[in-house]
């Protein structure tokens, strides 16, 4: 087992280097750089010398392969440098937003799971009834409705409902407070983006639960369980559901990993200062150091989540053994 984990960790390295190459050279293909952008923003006349000094300070005047080697070396030695735009350490800037994005991702995953598993199970048990069709329509709608539009509609709905009920329109708070500082404030701000993205992510998981459960329900051991007189509830909960969770865990895990970086649009709607917003800002400012680190972080979370999913398999299905 430990040998397997070691092998998998080693296999992450080529993926990470590949992602590094991709983002590094993609960013450098963009015309202009952070120095030109910074001086262009002042609106004053800037001579070339100043731009050159700026480039020299940031180290982006060096040969491109040296810069790349520096970036990769920094990544694997946990040295992420400073933001080229704000001048603050990259880790500090990311740390500020990481908490928020992580919380929204966890809450959204939670919303997705509590929607997906019961609905998927009902849909499978009541296959081809109107209930099944309703659940399927609900989940296909979840994939079709853009989460940013759902977000706008949630805000609009909140405004209208609170206006009707209390006379004063209420909007989720804009300012972020950590959950341990002010739980009510925190939840009342983050529950809405979590619902907007959670519904969307529940859609795929609902369909997966349904099809996996349908497959398991046709197995012989389910017939055996029924034949020996087990209550249907026990057959479903103990025998069928647990064995159909394998693909569902995969989907939920992968979606969680993607949520960490993929909240870009939702954060925009709810005006949240998370990793997605930081990504858009750093791309727009051509802040190489920040963008590179963010992308590497997202990819790292993805590969680690994949490993955790594979290990969870062995726990869920003891027949799977890794060597």
């Amino acid at each position, binding site marked *: 087992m430990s040998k397997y984990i070691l092998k998998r960790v080693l296999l992450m390295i080529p993926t990470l280097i590949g992602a590094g190459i991709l983002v590094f050279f993609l960013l450098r293909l*963009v015309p202009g750089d952070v120095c030109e952008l910074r001086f262009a923003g002042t609106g004053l006349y800037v001579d070339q010398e100043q731009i050159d000094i700026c480039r020299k300070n940031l180290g982006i005047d060096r040969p491109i392969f040296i810069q790349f080697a520096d970036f990769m070396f920094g990544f694997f030695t946990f040295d992420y440098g400073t933001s080229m735009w704000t001048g603050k350490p990259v880790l500090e800037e990311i740390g500020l937003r990481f908490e928020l994005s992580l919380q929204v991702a966890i809450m959204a995953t939670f919303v997705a799971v509590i929607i997906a598993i019961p609905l998927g199970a009902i849909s499978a048990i009541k296959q081809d009834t109107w209930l099944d069709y309703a659940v399927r329509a609900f989940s296909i709608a979840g994939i079709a409705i853009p989460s940013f539009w759902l977000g706008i509609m949630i805000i609009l709905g909140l405004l209208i409902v609170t206006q009707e009920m209390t006379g004063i329109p209420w909007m989720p708070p804009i300012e972020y407070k950590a959950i341990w500082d002010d739980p009510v404030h925190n939840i009342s701000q983050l529950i809405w983006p979590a619902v907007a993205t959670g519904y969307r992510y529940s859609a795929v998981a609902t369909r997966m639960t349904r099809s996996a459960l349908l497959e398991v329900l046709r197995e012989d051991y389910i017939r055996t369980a029924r034949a020996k007189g087990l209550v249907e509830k026990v057959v479903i909960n103990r025998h069928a559901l647990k064995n159909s969770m394998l693909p569902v865990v995969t989907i939920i895990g992968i979606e969680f990993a993607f949520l960490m970086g993929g909240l870009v649009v939702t954060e925009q709607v709810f005006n949240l200062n998370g990793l997605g917003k930081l990504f858009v800002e750093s791309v*727009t400012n051509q802040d190489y150091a920040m963008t590179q680190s963010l992308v590497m972080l997202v990819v790292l979370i993805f590969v680690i989540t994949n490993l955790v999913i594979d290990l969870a398999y062995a726990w869920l299905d003891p027949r799977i053994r890794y060597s």
Partner: protein
Amino acid sequence: MTTVSESAVEAQIEELGDKTPFLKAAAKMARKQPVGVAGLAVVILMIFASVFAPWLTPYHPEYNDFANMLTAPNAEYILGTDQFGRDIFTRIIYGARTALFVGFTAATVGAVLGLVLGVASAYFGGIFDLVFQRIMDVFMAFPLIILALAVVATLGTGTENVIIAITIPFVPQCARVVRSNALAIREIPYVDAARALGFGHARIILRHMAPNVMAPFLILFTAFVGQAILLEASLSYLGMGVQEPTPAWGLMLQGGAEEYAESAPWVAIWPGVAISLAVFGFNLFGDAVRDTLDPRLRSR
């Protein structure tokens, strides 16, 4: 003599038509998948709207009626106007053009490239396959929107660049699925036979192997169109996609929609309904295609 043989050939073709898996599948699908047909109806409605947009709409999509900005829906403007006094109904109909153009182009290019690369990877195997799979791994490790945003940042905004940005993440997704199907096909003797006949690699890949992975290809293609429409809307909403004054649904939700959501909800509601309906239609249709073409998933 010729006339006789021609009609005989025609008869044969007709007979073949009955046996062609595609036509048979299409007929079967219509019978067994009423929901899929509903999806297809939405798709056809969208195509109709985009082709006949100038005849269906009362205004030019870029016409500003500054006397009637943010007007609530009325007889003159059936879905109201936006903050620039433009007719929302007109812009939604024209928006279907943008959505379909981006959706179909990105899905076609992405799926075809993925098909060729996926089959080639399975066919050549060995070191080529290994390296190619690792490269695909890298692309798959990015969330769709992050990769698309990075590409837009490199190329700049605008419709063409958005299409490229959406196409790139599709290629590895398609290549991965096609490859696993093509691996099985590679072991079938007719591929060896083709090789023994001295056909080139390109011919074997394109003429002999690719047509046999059409089922997963079509399934992915229909799914891609819906995804591409959604992704284009997201990018445009972020201001990194299609640019003004091109009518695009995501763009209609940017800026004004949130700002005026309370005072003029029609600005925010209708473009979102259009996006949802379009993607819903493509997904329903795609599901029906999948159920029809993939026997393992049928009647689940």
